[in-house]
């Protein structure tokens, strides 16, 4: 694998691909919160077209959500420039920790015990997948 052995990135600036994965994941989380708020705000708009999800576009919150989706996609592309997919993709699954946690903190949704266990498992997996970050940093 020629490309990830090439440490062309410096420290923890935005150019660092792991920072890009983190920013991309954060953008997804922020977008989900805005989309949920926007979707809830447009429940009354139209019964006929509700199933398409397009009625959500009536809310500015949904548009902010869409902007964050686009930002996350672009950041993700940049992360793929230097990271192997077999590392970056599992790391991006941090959304499954961040989304439930922020739904709990920001939206006041409840988290069951089984869900806490799931979150713990994902975190343990992330620690293993992202471990080479330390090695990557040492090389620089």
């Amino acid at each position, binding site marked *: 694998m020629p490309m990830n052995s090439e440490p062309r990135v410096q420290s923890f600036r935005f150019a660092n691909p792991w920072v890009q994965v983190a920013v991309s994941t954060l953008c997804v989380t922020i977008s989900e919160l805005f989309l949920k708020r926007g979707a809830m705000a447009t429940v009354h708009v139209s019964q006929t077209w509700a199933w398409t999800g397009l009625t959500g576009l009536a809310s500015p919150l949904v548009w902010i959500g869409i902007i964050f989706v686009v930002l996350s996609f672009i950041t993700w592309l940049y992360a793929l420039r230097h990271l192997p*997919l077999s590392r970056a993709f599992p790391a991006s699954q941090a959304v499954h920790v961040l989304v439930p946690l922020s739904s709990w903190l920001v939206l006041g949704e409840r988290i069951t015990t089984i869900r806490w266990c799931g979150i*713990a498992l994902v975190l343990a997996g992330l620690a293993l997948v992202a471990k080479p970050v330390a090695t990557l940093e040492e090389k620089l």
Partner: protein
Amino acid sequence: MTLLSLLLIGVSLVALVGGQLLLKRAMESTTGRGFAQRTFVISLLAGTLLMATSFFLTLGLLQRFDLSYLYPFQGLSVIFISIAAAVLLRERLTLPLIIGSILITAGVVLVSIS
């Protein structure tokens, strides 16, 4: 649960894995040659198209099934992408990476069924 739905879940997963592989290929090609070249443009377009296909198939499936039923399949994408990246992109899979991916998949399944 019909055979057709299972097929759609499968197609959506394959499209997601294929899309990510193509996006990876597109971005990898830019490290040496920049953005103004065919491999980048074609892979990026094809990858984005596959990601969109997967997105809308999932959206359609969500109209008929609970999120908690569909999400575990989405969790499997981690394992499929790691295997596909190892086979097709010749990325090296280490033991911690494999164990980590399995833990993340198990965690995503737990988060979604609870």
